């Protein structure tokens, strides 16, 4: 148990240096996302940061429509190989072509608004 754990800040700090990190409970092996002070369900506080594989699958997908000329974009739920689910964007392909079950890989984009986890088609 780490008393000085700062879940959101630490996750973002890892992301800023290009690392996709997940929490994992030492006792149960359970992966946790989003980062928090204790594992959901068990309440286990023995959470370590471990690097994620970056491999994932599209679990659900939508295209957010904007008034042209502003482009529409993808919003998807991604199941990571480690067994956690998160919201993200599948980039570099037309958002309409993102399909459920599609294998994707994590990419970290660094911009003025900070670092952002996105996914590209495998």
């Amino acid at each position, binding site marked *: 148990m780490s008393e000085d754990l700062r879940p*959101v800040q630490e996750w973002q700090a890892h992301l800023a240096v290009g690392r996709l990190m997940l929490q994992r409970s030492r006792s149960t092996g359970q992966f946790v996302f*989003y980062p928090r002070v204790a594992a959901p369900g068990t309440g286990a506080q023995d959470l370590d940061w471990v690097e994620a594989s970056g491999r994932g699958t599209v*679990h*659900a*997908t*939508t*295209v*957010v*429509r904007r008034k042209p000329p502003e482009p529409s*974009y993808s*919003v*998807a*739920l991604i199941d990571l190989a480690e067994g956690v*689910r*998160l*919201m*993200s*964007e599948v980039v570099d392909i037309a958002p*309409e072509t993102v399909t*459920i*079950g599609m294998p994707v890989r994590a990419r970290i984009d660094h911009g003025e*608004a*900070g670092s*952002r986890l996105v996914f590209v088609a495998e």
Partner: protein
Amino acid sequence: MTNGFPRGRAAIVGAATYGIGRCPGVSAVDMAARASLMALDDAGLTLADVDAIYTSAPYEVLGGLELAEYLGIQPRVTDCNRTGGSAFEIYAQQAALALDAGLIDCALITYGSNPASNPPGAVGMSRQSVWEAPYRPIAPASSYALAASRHMHLYGTTRRDLAEVAVAARRWAQLNPEAAVRDPLTIEDVLGARMLSDPLSVRDACLFNDGAAAIVMTRADRAKDCAKPPVFVLGAASVVTHREISAMPDLTVTGAAITGPQAFAQAGIGISDIDVVMLYDAFTITPILFLEDLGFCAKGEGGPFVANGAIAPGGRLAVNTNGGGLSCVHPGMYGLFLLVEATRQLRGEAGDRQIGANIAVAHGNGGVLSSQATVVLGTRATL
């Protein structure tokens, strides 16, 4: 007492709506106060009878305190829960328990909101999750769209199935003079409407208009002295399964699969006993999910179940007879309007849209399919 609920020992004795559609120039608390006084009048009661307030103000965290002060009463119970649109079904549950315990004698459940008459953003206090905000989902449409995408993928549900829900709601709305949107709507109109967040178009989304509502509840023994026939609370159950859509345990199974069976067992009823079903229709996908989860059809069969006007007037099941959040009213939180319409149906006050009804179900939804609450209501014949 059966299954944790005092079946039939509390009743709705007053119900009212106010300002549906556009209600400019007043505040949300003005609207809630108006609806409250109308509901009390409907019950033959007065403010002096009220000793409990259950309300969810659209912009004020301490809305219950505000309303007590505004009305000039000092309630023994004041509750402003934060489960979203399902709050009012949970209030009915909590009020029934408090009434049965003798903690209170008369509960006022009320809500008013006028987002359509205010600048965007003036109503609402929910923050976007730091885990979702970077991806700019439309809140809450994209979350429901993600659930719909999953349902379509697994079960072959189509946009046309979703459109059936919108068209059925509109056809009910055309029978309800109070409904805000009553012009004709076809399946093709819905399919051709501007897309919001695939597979949902603007016609798959509920309204965002003004409206207020109130109900008054008291114990069954006191209810017989009220002005109108009491509508008894036969069962009420609720559950929270998540907050954000990414944490929903299964995107195609809502907490209604838990609360429905529980509330029906409390009420001692089966699906075939239900005459009117009021389902929170934030988006067209939600009634499909709730029909499945409550047990009206098997999981995945919600699309075919609603096809061919099956939940429209004259269909196999009367669903959302007021026109729903899709065509009647949705001022941010819609749950209380479900209870009002169910009450009107059971009292025989529903005019052209009246169903011969002894049992009605109101199913509330809060967050993004996050909080679910089922209330079973019945006439005296069901006691």
